């Protein structure tokens, strides 16, 4: 492989990683945009969703890489798995909001954020105690299809990640910017109090934000599993932290910011690892984050909102 080919390959790897981070970052950003709350439970909503996706695939007798599907069967199984995973993750998100955050709605300070950390641990231990601590050989029905350009390889599973990510992000963009509900969301994000006075059902908007954010985490979790053929009860932490960083880098609260931030973090991770050293990945990522925040405190695409009361 030439130097050029290696960098190209790392860029492809980075785009796949970045697409996952972006989908996950959107969940942080949607909730933050509405509630100004950092939802740390999102880390393990992702992890739990990866198991739900696994069980959904296993319903079709797909276990490990032993059962390869093609054509309509593949499309059907994948569509089913995505719908089930996203819906289940969305429901978990909504449940978290209803059970643990709504009662704290009026409480000032960090109580709600700390609560999300607690919920994060509950989800973590729920999987640890029920499923166990082993690594799962994630079911993957995708045939191994590779396109080779010189020494650079693009795999079917990578194309799948990109397609899913782009479709979901476009759908989210259309929803937020071109529907009545989306308009209500934007209004609530700008000023919840005023939105309420104008007749927006803010509680419903919050539920929708949690549902959408968690459903996107569900999609990210399923493509994560299909990409690495792996999941375990610990996967929420590293992936979640990177995604959170992506949301902050892009400007937390900004949907475009989360998408761009995710891709950037993915690319920084792979290209930084290639050009410097993989063990410095976190140092590189967080140095860039600090630099960006020093120059643009609200992140790349963040709005500097007037302080809400």
């Amino acid at each position, binding site marked *: *492989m030439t130097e050029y*080919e*290696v960098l190209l*390959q*790392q860029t492809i*790897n980075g785009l796949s*990683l970045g697409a996952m981070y972006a989908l996950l970052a959107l969940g942080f950003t949607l909730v933050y945009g509405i509630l100004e709350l950092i939802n740390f439970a999102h880390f393990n909503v992702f992890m739990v969703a990866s198991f739900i996706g696994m069980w959904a695939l296993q319903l079709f007798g797909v276990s*490990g*890489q032993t059962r390869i599907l093609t054509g309509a069967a593949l499309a059907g199984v994948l569509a089913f798995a995505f719908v089930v995973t996203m819906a289940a993750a969305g429901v978990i998100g909504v449940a978290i909001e209803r059970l643990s955050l709504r009662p704290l709605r009026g409480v000032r300070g960090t109580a709600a954020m700390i609560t999300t950390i607690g919920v994060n641990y509950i989800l*973590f*231990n729920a999987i*640890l*105690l*029920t*499923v*166990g*601590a*082993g*690594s*799962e*050989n994630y079911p993957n029905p995708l045939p191994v299809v590779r396109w080779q350009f010189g020494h650079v390889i693009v795999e079917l599973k990578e194309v799948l990640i990109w397609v899913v990510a782009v479709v979901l992000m476009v759908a989210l963009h259309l929803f937020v910017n071109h529907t009545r509900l989306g308009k209500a969301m934007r209004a609530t994000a700008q000023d919840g109090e005023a939105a309420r006075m104008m007749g927006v059902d803010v509680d419903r908007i919050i539920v929708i934000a949690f549902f959408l954010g968690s459903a996107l985490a569900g999609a990210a979790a399923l493509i*994560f599993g299909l990409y*690495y*053929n*792996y999941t*375990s*009860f*610990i*996967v929420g*932490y*590293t*992936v979640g932290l990177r995604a959170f960083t992506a949301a902050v880098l892009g400007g937390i609260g900004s949907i475009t910011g989360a998408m761009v931030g995710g891709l950037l973090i993915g690319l920084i*991770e*792979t290209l930084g*690892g*290639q050009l410097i*050293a*993989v*063990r410095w*990945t976190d140092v590189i990522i967080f140095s860039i984050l600090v630099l960006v925040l020093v120059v643009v405190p609200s992140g790349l695409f963040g709005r500097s909102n007037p302080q809400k009361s």
Partner: protein
Amino acid sequence: MWSRRSVIISLSATALAGTLTSHGARVLAGEKSVKIGINLPFTGADAHDAELIKDGAMLAIDEANSAGGIAGYKIDVLLLDDGTATAGQYDPAQAATNARKMVGDDAVVAAIGPQMSGSGKAMSPILSQGGLATITPSSTNPDITNPRFAAQYRPAGKAIYFRTVTTDAFQGPNMANYFADTLKVRSVYVLDDSGAYGVGLADAFQAQAKRRGLDVLGRDQLNPKETDYTTTLTKIKALNPQALYFGGVAQAGVKVVKESFDIIPNVLKGGGDGVYAAEILRGAGFPAAQGWYVTIAAPNVLENPDAAPMMERFAKKYGQQPDNYSITAYDAALVILDAIRRLAAAGGPVTRDAVRDAIQQSHVKTLQGEISFDANGDIANRVISVFQITRNDKYPLDDVLHQYKYIGVAPASS
């Protein structure tokens, strides 16, 4: 679910059995009891393999108890878990806490474990201060018993960290010899999982590989909690090495096996006893695991006819096949039981100090042959066995006994 619940159940069961028997025994016949501490990571990525080790040790202990104990002593067990959810695998901090628990329990006269060298490094100084000997059936980092680091790992002076396996001072270099001599590898890339064991093993392999004239194209360190190793593996692919050597345990190992199969399928791959694990077969599975060359720091006893009866009893009792480290754990228990037996026979008190000294002077016939230790606690026998993961459809695909095919002994350095 399985491992943790079973730990809790067996913990309470042993505790219960312990109180009942020692109590009842004292009332009935004035019998005495002593305790053996067992510390293994039952939580996390190595839980399944920890279970296999525990079962090996428990088989020996249970059999001794049901034969009426050792010279009048019932053997109780203090079972401790040094794996934590936060670490997702063994956790040296928890291991240190467990070492203090063992030392704090006066009835504990010897210990078995830990599975992992990272835990061993944390436990050894504490056990040394407490004068409590432990026998590890699987932790292979040489520093712990190296006299050069005695001030750090055995500040109280005497050797307390005994092993029924040899160390990475042989496991790494002998595999480098095997790469050079038998596999005729000329270039290699080395990875480790940033744990005490992984780094040490990879260092030892790398140094000998260089000495043998192999071209070491690079060395990188993986974060075991990270999922994505594609960046590192793409980097390796660009360097086009003939072989990859991985020093580390299952948490990183599963992902290395999977992702390297995807990105560098044609590179020859090898690792140490961290890759000799049911977890690798279960988590990475086939076809990814197929073809890996793996060593263990002990002779391969599983195909030895002397071991057959024990393996049969093991399989009958626990419903699964033992692996080689179930056997080294069984042997570790035999060594401790033998030490207690000799002390009791000589009429002396069975104290920690006495048990330690008795272990030090062991010449015990075990499944892997006669076990004796040098002044640092290392086993005299220094055999490194090589296996290759070879799919065998006649047996369960996570059965270490049948999916790791024994190849032979790795050549020692001259």
